[in-house]
């Protein structure tokens, strides 16, 4: 047999509504977050999210390098998203590329809208996101990791920032796309939510959706973010509930 092209596209959604990896349309991949994974960073987190593995480290507030980026009224938030050469099937050429610059920028901007940067003028809060293994949704996984790392670093902010991608694959609106759904699906819509206010601070889109589908997707995404928010909170509680309690009785 051989209708070229068609044979390469996997079936993304079964007639029963089951996705290629067995999930339902509104189901997230398994997520595991470890807060405080690194010793030398001011704050850190390791996120395993489906087949993604992402490490985030936060340094600061600290002196700004390079100096000319310093701002007199608030801290600058500098973010560096990077994918390891071994993070994907084909070796990824190391270093900056347009994609990683874009992600660094949108992630930094998402944090700018929640971090209380005015408390630390003339300083820098440096966020490093290293993708060790990638399987779609790494900007969201990176953002989640960085957000937990920022909390672990004691940085004041309005809220944690859960993030997830929603999209369309096999004709259905689905949450938390995996690699196949991302590659062969019809649309991808990563988003980050401030649970406290209900605002979205990151929203990008690739592909096509109708207006109605977009509305459904946003609802699904907000739901997904709320689920992720709980996992993020639990990760921080796990790290700090046993830890530092100032001694009151001698």
């Amino acid at each position, binding site marked *: 047999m051989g209708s070229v092209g068609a044979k390469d596209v996997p079936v993304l959604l079964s007639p029963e509504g089951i996705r290629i990896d067995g999930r339902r349309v509104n189901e997230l991949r398994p997520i595991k977050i470890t807060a405080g994974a690194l010793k030398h960073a001011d704050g850190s987190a390791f996120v395993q999210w489906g087949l993604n593995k992402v490490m985030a480290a936060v340094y600061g507030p600290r002196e700004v390098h390079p100096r000319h980026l310093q701002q007199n009224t608030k801290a600058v938030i500098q973010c560096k998203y990077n994918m390891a050469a071994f993070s994907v099937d084909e070796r990824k050429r190391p270093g900056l590329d347009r994609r990683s610059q874009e992600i660094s920028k949108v992630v930094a901007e998402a944090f700018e809208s929640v971090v209380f940067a005015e408390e630390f003028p003339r300083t820098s809060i440096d966020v490093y996101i290293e993708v060790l293994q990638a399987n779609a949704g790494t900007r969201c996984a990176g953002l989640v990791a960085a957000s937990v790392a920022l909390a672990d670093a004691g940085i004041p902010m309005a809220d944690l920032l859960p993030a997830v991608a929603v999209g369309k694959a096999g004709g259905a609106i689905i949450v938390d796309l995996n690699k196949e759904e991302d590659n062969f699906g019809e649309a991808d819509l990563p988003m980050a939510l401030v649970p406290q206010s209900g605002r979205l601070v990151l929203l990008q889109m690739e592909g096509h959706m109708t207006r109605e589908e977009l509305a459904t997707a946003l609802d699904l995404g907000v739901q997904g973010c709320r689920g992720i928010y709980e996992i993020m909170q639990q990760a921080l509680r796990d790290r700090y509930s046993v830890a*530092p309690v100032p*001694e009151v009785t001698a």
Partner: protein
Amino acid sequence: MGGSHRTGPRRRGPRGSSPHPSGERVLVLPGEEIPSQGLKPGPGTYRVGGRVYASVLGLLSARPPFVQVIPLSGRYIPKPNDVVIGTVTDVQGTFWLLDIGAPRWAPLHMTGTPWKVDVGETEQYLRVGESVVVRVENLDPTGRIGVTMLGEGLGKLEGGSIVHVSPARVPRVVGRGGSMIQTITRQTGAQVAVGQNGRVWVNGDPEAIHRVREALRMISEDGQRSGLTERVESYLRSTASSDEAGEDHPPAGESAHRDAPEGSFASSPPPDDRDDSDEPRTDENN
């Protein structure tokens, strides 16, 4: 999780009390709503509409008329009169820049030292990498941190090494009335100076330094409410070498350098926002 309840009487410490009826210390996370009970939003919180939320990860604390969150992590946030240990990161013509673990480097001006330094001669007194005990003198709204080396117990640290602990753990390193730090110096014979910024200077023979390091690690990782001093003491006893086993160390006396003399940090007034800790101190003679 078994709730650990306080055993002794609550001290009406400056940290205030937990607003939780059980007296349990409540961990809050950024974005979490706080029951404000009519209190105003204090440090570590923010208000939107009529509701108060935490802005940092920490322990909830009521300190009327404010409700606040005491951070459990993060960099050292300087407060006036804190005695801290800094490491020189840059030398300029009239001042040195010190890394005190704060968001910014702290300039130590040559007029803030006991030395008669000529302009341009700063490097003859302090070089990059050397450490000093200084006091936070003034803070301005832009985050500049002024420090001075003029005052009892302040000065350059000769020899020894510096161990970092979280600034949030300094009260436990010092212990009630200095009990923890006294235990450590007595059991190891090392000289120890604790800065409010979580930098701990340790001097003595390598074995002693190692044991102090381990003790500090125990304190950093300990999550329990009480008995820490006893546990540290029994650890230090168990690691004492045979010729000194079971015996308290003699004062580290005359061989000790005198740049950070006994009771050095005790001159600083009690910091107003610390738990039950005493001000940092060196304890050479227990």
